[in-house]
């Protein structure tokens, strides 16, 4: 299983699409590693600096419809090769969400008011997240402030994360 704890990057916008996560011109890459430096390269967001803002971050928290657009799995891979294995959002585009679990990573939906609360509490400070996968909780820490939120995962998503992704699961079971 991958590492699901680390420092949090807050991206305060809905509809962040796969072209913003990894521009189409990098689809010609045939290795995952080549995508690394280009994560979120075209994202225009106040306070966000491509390359710099993602450095030493392992978790992304964002708003609604995260990962909309193309079906490219390069988007989750761009996160993966940067060591970001968890995206938390109000909602996800279906394909992006599935792609995260297919790679053995986490894309977790939390209610809109919980997300809003997380932004209020933590978006402007250095925040660390600890994931308790067994008990399905996220614990956010910033200085003295600590906040735990529960999450839910379907049994299948859980099985995928445990197996290390869908290819391994499917080859073993079908």
């Amino acid at each position, binding site marked *: 299983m991958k590492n699901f704890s680390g420092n949090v990057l807050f991206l305060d916008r809905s509809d962040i699409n796969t072209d913003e996560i990894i521009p189409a011109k990098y689809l010609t890459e045939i290795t995952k590693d080549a995508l690394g430096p280009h994560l979120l390269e075209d994202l225009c967001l106040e306070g966000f600096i491509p390359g710099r803002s993602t450095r030493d971050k392992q978790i992304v928290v964002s708003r609604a419809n995260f990962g909309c657009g193309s079906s490219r799995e390069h988007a989750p891979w761009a996160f993966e090769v940067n060591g970001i294995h968890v995206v938390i959002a109000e909602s996800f585009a279906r394909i992006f969400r*599935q792609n995260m679990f297919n790679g053995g990573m986490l894309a977790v939906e939390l209610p809109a008011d919980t997300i809003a609360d997380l932004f209020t509490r933590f978006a402007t400070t250095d925040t660390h997240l600890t994931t308790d996968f067994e008990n399905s909780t996220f614990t956010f820490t910033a200085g003295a402030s600590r906040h735990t939120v529960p999450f839910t995962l379907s049994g299948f998503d859980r099985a995928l994360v445990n197996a290390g992704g869908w290819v391994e699961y499917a080859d073993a079971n079908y």
Partner: protein
Amino acid sequence: MGRTIVEKIFDSHRRDNPFDDVHVIGLDVVACHEITTPIAINDLAARGKDRVFDPDRIKAVIDHVTPAKDSKTAEQGKILRDWARRHGIRDFFDIGRNGVCHALFPEKGFIRPGYTAIMGDSHTCTYGAFGAFAAGVGTTDLEVGILKGVCAFRLPETLRIDITGTLADGVYAKDVILSVIARLGVNGATNKVIEFSGPVVDSMSMAERMTLCNMAIEAGGTCGICAPDQTTVDYLWDFIKDDYRDKTEALAAFAAYRPDAGARYAGVIHHDVSGLEPLATFGHKPDQVKPVCDMTHQKVDQVYIGSCTNGRIEDLRVAAEVLRGQTIAPTVRGIVSPATPRIYRQAMAEGLIDVFMQAGFCVTNPTCGACLGMSNGVLAEGEVCAATTNRNFNGRMGIGGMVHLVSPATAAASAIAGHLAPAGNKRKQGA
């Protein structure tokens, strides 16, 4: 209880329910192109799993960048080509025989009512026009499809759009789907299948139905879908005539994939298209839509006619009709890419290629081309393109470029005018 089309397809293809609401279904078609497949091929090889479940049910094409434009895209093509040869994939289409995947594969008769198909491409939803369930998937799903011929889905709910009314002259399937997306929003059909029904859809050709279903993903839909009918049978007849005694028998068989009267829908939307005007998008999201008449101030630098949305012969005919005897504005670069070799030859036989060239268009080989800004027809910063494609995302056709999604008629009229313009003066006629 009555079932929707997609429920019927899942019932006839289900292999496993590993967990509640996860349906592993068998696949009739696994489609591949040179952009998303090479990584899958390489990753399968790296895992020691360089196998395919059934070479006859895998279809592959080099279409996004063809001819190859640099060493990287040449390498991508080579990986797909070598893999197809290695595994005896007969339906592999290389330059000279290739075309835009979602136009080429239906044209070859590969997509049938009740089929299941996946591809590493979001516009796979186009195939729903045949009453098939077809979804764009990520590379890992594609790997599993190639390896095992299965894919896991949650059973999607169906959102039905009943399209009624009469389309005005100069208003096309593209305008209809833009109006639907504007109404639903880019997230309005997320995780759902959009069933297009009603008299307007019933009277549409397969080409028009493909235009509708092609953009289901732009409203977040997993797949668009149209109930198979006589039009479907007629389109497919050459490919299926050995399987059925006559068209009546085929129609009866396909009826198994029409929705039941009592089917349960996530919603039913009545969409009246009477009075609809030619439309264009105005921002970087496909649900930002306005009448073209309200945007005639917008100058265009390039006009692109092609793609899996509107690169079929019917689209070229409409555009050529507008262009016949006309010349495009000297400030406009016109590019047309017939979506398949067959469409190209048909356009030649009908004299359409001549019309385009007389008007000042560049005619390219069948390819995705300018649609995705990584092959030909890339926009410079600040440039504007009126395109018959399906995506206007920021940077889609080139960094800093703006794409206005329009119908082929509007694209042609805009090329002549040098700015966004409807074909004819539709507002006056309608008033």
